[in-house]
């Protein structure tokens, strides 16, 4: 941040790239989508989904549905060992999905069981770093998909 503050101080005129402005706005106003814990705004108004616990197969369909209801650009933070890879249930937890990335794409993994509060804040800062480098001109996600499957691009 600091980008706008400095510009204000030097004469009240802002000169910036649209990319920078949009990225700054996005990363400064991330609206988290929690579920299961307490009532939240609708997924349609949320920017980032924080998966903060064990994902069971019964929950998997619901999580996928919620993710699909979010408008793009959307991000996912996987918080803690359980949602990263199944955690302690990796071997005998027949009912546990071994990582939420089997259902939806994950942007940032926060390790820990449970993660310390600082670790989650660190994860959000990491996500902001990621958003800061995005650009309207080159849709990186699309390019990555085309590289993976040339000729058959599927827009999710």
């Amino acid at each position: 941040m600091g980008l706008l503050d400095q510009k204000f101080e030097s004469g009240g005129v802002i000169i910036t790239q649209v990319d920078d402005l949009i990225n700054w706005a996005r990363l400064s106003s991330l609206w988290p989508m929690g579920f299961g814990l307490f009532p939240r705004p609708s997924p349609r108004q949320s920017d980032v989904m924080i998966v903060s616990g064990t994902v069971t197969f019964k929950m998997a369909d619901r999580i996928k549905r919620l993710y699909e209801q979010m408008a793009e650009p959307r991000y996912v933070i996987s918080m803690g060992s359980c949602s990263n890879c199944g955690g302690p249930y990796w071997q005998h937890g027949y009912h546990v999905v071994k990582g939420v990335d089997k259902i939806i794409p994950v942007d940032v993994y926060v390790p820990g069981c449970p993660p310390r509060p600082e670790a989650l804040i660190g994860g959000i800062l990491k996500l902001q770093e990621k958003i800061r480098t995005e650009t309207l001109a080159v849709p990186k996600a699309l390019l990555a998909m085309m590289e993976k499957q040339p000729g058959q691009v599927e827009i999710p």
Partner: protein
Amino acid sequence: MKSAFDLLAELLVNRFGETAVVAENTPLQPRLRIATERIADVCQFLHENEQTYFDLLECLSAVDNGPGTGTMEVFYHLYSIPYEHALALRIVFPRNDASGNLPEVPTVSHVWRTADWHEREAYDLLGIRFAAHPDLRRILLPADWEGHPLRKDYTEQDRYHGISVKYE
């Protein structure tokens, strides 16, 4: 002087006969083994009789003894709030019926509403069917899950809705 357990055992043996009720003086908790087909009648009697008045089903739990033994058990822990006495019952039955299907035992959900969800859990995880249960659906796992995970010979399915179940 006879213990409360002995008195209860005597009462039930007189009412239902020696083949239907067997007292088991196991060290930690004495219990009564009830003939499987009589369990609902015995529970109804214990609930309604003024001398016993077991108004609370504390817990209904089930055990799989494995394919080697070939039996399963259901335990009933009863408590009477006015009399402050407790009783444990158990039934033993084959893991599968004659044609290899899941076993079926009488329900006690009409005696205690508590048993409704407890029996659903026993059905979900151990595959015990409770005859005449009003709503015998899975209670924890998804409705389209395959198998009953706490049975000793359970192996989980490879995939569920396209997601691999095992860690890979």
